[in-house]
């Protein structure tokens, strides 16, 4: 059986709202953009999706409604009857049936139109099909909108029905209108039912809960019942009849002995007898209310007789035969105004109900499963001797002493604080109660951190001993090291001279490396200039002489040789001493130095004027030679300007100059690079 919860039924929207919700959802949750240029299959799919989506949503929502509303046959007959009484079973079923048909219709519509859409050949046609499909579905829903409205009303009312558990302990209160049923329930439970002087104040069932012997009882207040045949009863009375009919409860029939409800005891008795068929198998109590207005003893004879008749009827429902004591318990009197006897009535009702339920349970088969698990063991007394609990004497004394001590009241820390200046002034000494080997140490401040370490990490009872061991170890180690050091000095150390020499060598090496690196890095872009034009004067004979002397050699021989092989000396003929002798006779002895000076200042090998013909060169005349020389120089000029070493030097330093291969042009195009 499906569990229904009347309070948790989802809201049923009205027809219009329903359509709005579904259509807006379709619009939001399905793709919206489509163009006529799309492939036809895509167009069809687009519209089919919309139709299908709408149908699905309708289906889901309608199914939810159908499932959530209870099936009257599935629920407890009390509720079934109650709902029938309130809403009319047929109308209810019809409404739900309409919803069901609507659901099926919508499914059919969608199937049809999807089939049609499969053959739609243009965007417009597909669109119209979709519009038609959705339109038809919406019309279906609009047609069932009265059912939807009806169901919504029912849902709202159902949610407000009192939550009566048909299976638990229940006490039912019934009787004529205005007899005091609602006042009674107000008294024994926390329910707050309207109590008014007019009849039919209570128009529906009300539930309250009360406790008796650690168990919870439902107390149900019903609207008043009039004495009429069943067919003529109105809905309100039918509610109470239903409750009476279907709930297994203890019934309290209320009797107004004073007649202030407007009905005589005779009428009430008549009602009693007409509905006594409903009291079968239910513990019945006849309760006489309003005895403060009319005590039971001062009733008239006929009234008393009527009351006794009712009592007899009621006692028939007693289980356990005609016990006169119990029989008296069937008729009770109370007054809700003075609260006289109210509790007694409640207790009696609860007791009767409990007993009946227990008996029923015992009779049923289920009890046998549990019964064998119960066993209350009571030890049989051996003899008549009394054996109270035995408390040792010491404990009794201690207890007495404790009581005395507590009466003395020890001095609290709080008192100490108050004596010494109060909360802000006095700070309690937390170290007062320390347990230390020597009480002088109580106020000591122990350092926590020392020289970058935590002191507590080092604290150890045998630290001194370990320290001693460590120091011994250290001593041994030091000795071992000293021996090692003595051995180690065998290795050769460099002397001062050697170290200086090493430094020089390293300096020289690094200089060489640096020079080489500079040369290497500028090799390509550096032009080769003759040594005599070297700016650093690195290839002069003075420099050579200095370098050689630094190496420890005597440079004079080398310098002389260099001098004699220099260009200025090259080509000079050997000195002919004999020739000088021949010529010396004719020379003027008066001016010997002048000639010598002239000779010694003679020019280095000169070339003569540029156009001067030298035989063997292959020129016709000096004009040709000058022209040839000029041409050669002209060609060389261009090459020199380009810093080319000669004709064959075709080095291009920068194969891809950046300015030609990158950047935009201020005017013109950059297609060609």
């Amino acid at each position, binding site marked *: 059986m499906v569990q229904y919860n009347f309070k948790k039924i989802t809201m049923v929207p009205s027809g219009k709202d329903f359509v709005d919700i579904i259509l807006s959802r379709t619009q939001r949750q399905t793709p919206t953009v489509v163009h006529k240029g799309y492939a036809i299959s895509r167009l069809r799919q687009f519209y089919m999706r919309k139709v299908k989506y709408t149908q699905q949503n309708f289906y889901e929502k309608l199914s939810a409604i159908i499932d959530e509303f209870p099936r009257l046959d599935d629920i407890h007959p009390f509720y079934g009857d109650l709902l029938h009484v309130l809403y009319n079973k047929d109308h209810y079923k019809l409404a739900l049936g309409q919803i069901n048909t609507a659901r099926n219709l919508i499914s059919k519509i969608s199937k049809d139109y999807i089939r049609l859409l499969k053959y739609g050949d243009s965007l417009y046609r597909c669109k119209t099909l979709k519009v038609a499909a959705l339109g038809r579905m919406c019309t279906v829903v609009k047609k069932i909108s009265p059912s939807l409205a009806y169901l919504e009303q029912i849902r709202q009312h159902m949610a407000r029905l009192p939550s009566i558990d048909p299976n638990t302990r229940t006490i039912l209160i019934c009787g004529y209108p205005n007899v005091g049923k609602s006042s009674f329930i107000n008294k024994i439970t926390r329910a707050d039912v309207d109590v008014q002087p007019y009849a039919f104040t209570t128009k529906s069932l009300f539930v309250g809960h009360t406790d008796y012997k650690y168990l919870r009882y439902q107390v149900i207040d019903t609207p008043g019942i009039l004495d009429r045949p069943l067919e003529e009863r109105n809905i309100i009375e039918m509610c109470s009849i239903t409750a009476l009919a279907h709930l297994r409860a203890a019934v309290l029939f209320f009797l107004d002995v004073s007649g202030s409800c407007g009905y005589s005891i005779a009428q009430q008795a008549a009602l009693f007898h007409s509905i006594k068929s409903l009291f079968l198998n239910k513990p019945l109590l006849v309760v006489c209310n309003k005895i403060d207005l009319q005590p039971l003893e001062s009733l008239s004879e006929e009234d008393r007789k009527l009351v006794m008749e009712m009592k007899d009827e009621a006692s028939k429902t007693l289980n356990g035969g005609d016990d006169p004591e119990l029989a008296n318990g069937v008729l009770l009197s109370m007054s809700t105004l003075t609260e006289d006897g109210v509790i007694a009535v409640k207790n009696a009702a609860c007791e009767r109900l409990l007993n009946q339920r227990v008996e029923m349970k015992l009779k049923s088969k289920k009890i046998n499963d549990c019964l064998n698990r119960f066993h209350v063991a009571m030890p049989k007394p051996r003899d008549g001797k009394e054996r109270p609990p035995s408390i040792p004497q010491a404990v009794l004394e201690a207890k007495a002493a404790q009581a005395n001590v507590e009466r003395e009241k020890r001095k609290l820390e709080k008192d100490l604080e108050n004596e010494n200046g109060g909360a802000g002034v006095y700070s309690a000494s937390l170290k007062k109660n*320390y*347990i*230390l*080997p020597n009480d002088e*140490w109580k106020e*000591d401040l*122990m*350092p*926590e*951190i020392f*020289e*970058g*370490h*935590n*002191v*507590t*990490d*080092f*604290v*150890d*009872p045998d*630290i*001194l001993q*370990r*320290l001693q061991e*460590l*120091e011994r170890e*250290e001593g041994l180690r030091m000795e071992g090291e000293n021996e090692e050091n003595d051995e180690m000095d065998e*290795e050769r*150390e*460099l002397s001062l*001279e050697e170290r*200086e*020499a*090493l430094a*020089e*060598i*390293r300096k*020289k090496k690094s200089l*060489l490396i640096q020079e080489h690196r500079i040369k290497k890095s500028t090799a390509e872009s550096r032009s080769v200039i003759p040594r005599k034009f070297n700016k650093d004067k690195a290839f002069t004979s*003075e420099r050579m002489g*200095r370098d*050689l*002397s*630094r*190496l*420890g*050699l005597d*440079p*004079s021989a080398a*310098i*002389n040789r260099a001098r004699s092989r220099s260009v200025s000396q090259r080509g000079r003929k050997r*000195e002919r*001493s004999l020739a*000088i*002798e021949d010529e*010396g006779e004719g020379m003027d002895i008066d001016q*010997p130095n002048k000639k*010598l000076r002239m000779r*010694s200042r003679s020019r280095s090998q000169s070339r003569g004027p540029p156009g001067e013909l030298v035989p063997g060169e292959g020129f016709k005349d000096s004009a040709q030679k000058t022209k040839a020389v000029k041409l050669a120089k002209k060609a060389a000029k261009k090459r020199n300007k380009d810093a080319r070493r000669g004709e064959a030097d075709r080095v291009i330093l920068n194969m891809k100059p950046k300015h030609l291969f990158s950047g935009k042009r201020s005017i013109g195009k950059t297609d060609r690079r």
Partner: protein
Amino acid sequence: MRLEKCWFCSSTIYPGHGIQFVRNDCTVFKFCRSKCHKNFKMKRNPRKVRWTKKYRELHNKDLARDTVFEFERKRQRPERYDRNLVENTLKAMKKIDEIRVTRREKFWLNRMKVKKSKEKKEDLKELEQGIDLVKAPLAFQEDSTLTIPKAKKMKVVITKPEEERRQMEE
């Protein structure tokens, strides 16, 4: 108040410095500064990061396992306060510190010794090979010590054979 150790670089964290990170499995990581913290967040392994203590100890750069370190141990149960004990502890701490420092230095010297002997051998070789750059072999023959010759002021002897001869003639 406790001095903690940084999880990443193992330096001490003084009060008021650093950040602690607690992971979902309740492990606490303490960092001395944001450098370590950021390295941790980058999921770097301190055993592979060269400047941390863990790396250095793992790769035998620093003294790692020694009896000196066993004196400092985090104790779970506190000892009952005893003034004499604390006094002794403080004195001992000082001495232990000294010993630790000496041992650490010794370790370092040992480590560097290897290089020293290698260096010496290399120096000798270089000296032998490279002396030619500084002192010409000829000079070496004359003076076989390693004294570097000083640069002399050069005096060039100019031979004037013509003049002399001429004068001789005359």
